[in-house]
């Protein structure tokens, strides 16, 4: 037992962090929110070069083999920088396609970042259905290539552009629970990253902002809220990495609900401690604040995840897609 990231895994995280810091994601996110995808696609290609999507794709299709721990490490960084786009959906779709006869048709392109994919439960909204190269829908009878998408609906997170998928389409293979677990895991990791970024930004802010002649971060009421956010995030982290190692459904569900609750609690703290400036859309904090809320219900609501932990999943099979129904 050595429950610590290996040096290569830590290096991978650091290199993604450096790449994303240099890319300056806030401007990319704001473009993406307006439906301008150029800079986002360029960033996507660089993430593909760094090997992010290959981590969900078998070696025979130009991937690196399914590596959930490295995926979790990568998605923490993607969340930390609030990278827009159907990241979770591309990874989950790739994992689903690997078990079908259509792997060769889709996977090399997804691994290389030349194409992107969205994925939604039939009847649910799909993330970035307008921007994705391929749109897949999941229904009880299996995975289908959706024939198109409907109009974009705004999310509370402006960078998440949701569309319905048109019904029907080519049947590609069976629905595999493992891929949904991967969607949950990567959403959990992304949420953890969002929470860590919110905490970092807020710690910096309260250290600089002065009132009554001292930094507001010296007030115990402020310090203790941030300490609680830190505790919540640091106990979510081992659940995310542990779930990546075991991929047991209960572990993945526990990681999802805990990381998303921790990120959301941190978002509430971040908003409050920034005061009115944090409530504005022009201040970059909003890019993380709104994502923390959106991820909370994506790929498994808190209630669904807790039910899976209790071993008492609600009848009906598949967890919901990125949003709850339409």
């Amino acid at each position, binding site marked *: 037992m050595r*429950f610590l990231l290996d040096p290569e895994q830590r290096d991978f995280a650091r290199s993604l962090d450096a790449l994303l810091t240099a890319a300056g994601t806030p401007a990319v996110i704001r473009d993406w929110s307006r439906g301008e995808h150029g800079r986002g696609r360029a960033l996507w290609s660089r993430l593909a070069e760094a090997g992010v999507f290959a981590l969900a794709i078998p070696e025979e299709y130009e991937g690196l083999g399914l590596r959930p721990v490295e995926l979790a490490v990568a998605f923490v960084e993607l969340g930390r920088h609030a990278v827009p786009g159907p990241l979770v959906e591309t990874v989950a779709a790739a994992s689903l396609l690997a078990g079908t006869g259509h792997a060769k048709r889709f996977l090399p392109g997804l691994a290389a970042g030349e194409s992107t994919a969205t994925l939604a439960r039939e009847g649910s909204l799909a993330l970035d259905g307008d921007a994705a190269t391929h749109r897949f829908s999941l229904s009880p009878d299996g995975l289908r290539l959706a024939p198109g998408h409907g109009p974009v609906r705004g999310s509370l997170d402006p960078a998440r552009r949701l569309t319905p998928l048109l019904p029907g389409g080519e049947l590609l293979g069976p629905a595999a629970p493992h891929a949904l677990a991967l969607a949950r895991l990567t959403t959990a990791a992304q949420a953890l990253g969002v929470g860590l970024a919110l905490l970092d930004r807020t710690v910096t802010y309260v250290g600089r902002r002065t009132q009554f002649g001292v930094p507001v971060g010296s007030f115990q009421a402020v310090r203790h809220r941030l300490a609680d956010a830190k505790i919540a995030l640091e106990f979510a982290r081992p659940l995310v990495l542990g779930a990546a190692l075991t991929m047991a459904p209960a572990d993945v569900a526990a990681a999802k609900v805990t990381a998303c609750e921790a990120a959301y609690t941190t978002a509430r703290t971040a908003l409050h401690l920034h005061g009115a400036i944090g409530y504005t859309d022009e201040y970059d904090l909003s890019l993380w604040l709104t994502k923390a809320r959106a991820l909370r219900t994506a790929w498994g609501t808190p209630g669904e995840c807790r039910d899976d932990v209790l071993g*008492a999943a609600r009848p009906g099979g598949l967890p919901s897609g990125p949003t709850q129904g339409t």
Partner: protein
Amino acid sequence: MDLGFTRDEQALRAEARAWLAAHVPATPLPSLETGEGFAAHRAWEAELAAGRWSVVDWPERYGGRDAGLIGRLLVEEEYYAAGAPGRVGQNGVSLLAPTLFAHGTEEQRARVLPPMATGEVVWAQAWSEPEAGSDLASLRSRAVRADGGWLLSGQKTWSSRAAFADRAFGLFRSDPDTPRPHQGLTYVMFGLRAPGVTVRPIGRLDGRPAFAELFLDEVFVPDEDVIGEPGQGWRIAMATAADERGLTLRSPGRFLASAERLRALWQDRGRPDWAREKVADALIGARAYQLFTFAAASRYLTGVPLGPESSLNKVFWSEYDLALHETALDLLDGEAEMADTDWAERYVFALAGPIYAGTNEIQRDIVAERLLGLPKGRR
């Protein structure tokens, strides 16, 4: 990165499980915080020690198995899953023993550890004083130089287990003229039945004497019962405090077992919807705590000492434990207020968690200053 266990670790776990199945008392022992229960728990410690299960991570020469930290965590999982009794020797094993391993002499280890392992000598802690609680460094009990040792005088309080224990360890001011209160403190061990010691048991909320006040009037302590250099007590005690809050005081095995008991209670009561979230969170919290501990242990085993990260731990487990027991009482419905349920004493015990071992407010201050780097401020 992995969560696998070696063949030896798995064999140890299996051996522990078999031994516990054959030895754990069929009916629970009387409360640890009564004279009768204390004696019964002491006898249980002797039985555990005879099977070499009381301190598995210690070296063999002191009564252990050299099983390492991971071995200890696995044995504890089995221990609590088997419903085995609470550990009356906890204070000594979790707090004093790590201090002796780090700062004691070989003579002290050879003399103190074996009877600690068997429960022959049970230890109480003597940190707090009436005017020194969260601000522990302001303590005023004195150690005055005497021929061949020291004379202890003053008052200690909230001394867990002291009502029935044999010996105690704590900090005393050996130099009254230092620039800072953290200096001039000395870490000593002393007998609770030594001349000059008066023990006044204090009833906790349920009336049981779980702790005591200690009045010391020129109690002689020989030099061999001082741990480390005189005047260095604060540094030595704080190293122990990180252990207490971090890895050793609350085993993940204990919470994994408690969470499963809560799940069983919930199922037994017809799985009420109002408790679904709380029961799920108890199961999730136990898993989070287990994995957090595995990560901390892995880091510790690479040679990184436990630091302020242990403050995250202490807030988490103490609040977790209380929430779990509050849910359990709510599930008991009309029986919730009864003092004789399986849950009542555990609930009363959990109520103290956010207060002892450094209050949770002190821990949050440590997290804020030392982990987040926030500016120092007024408490």
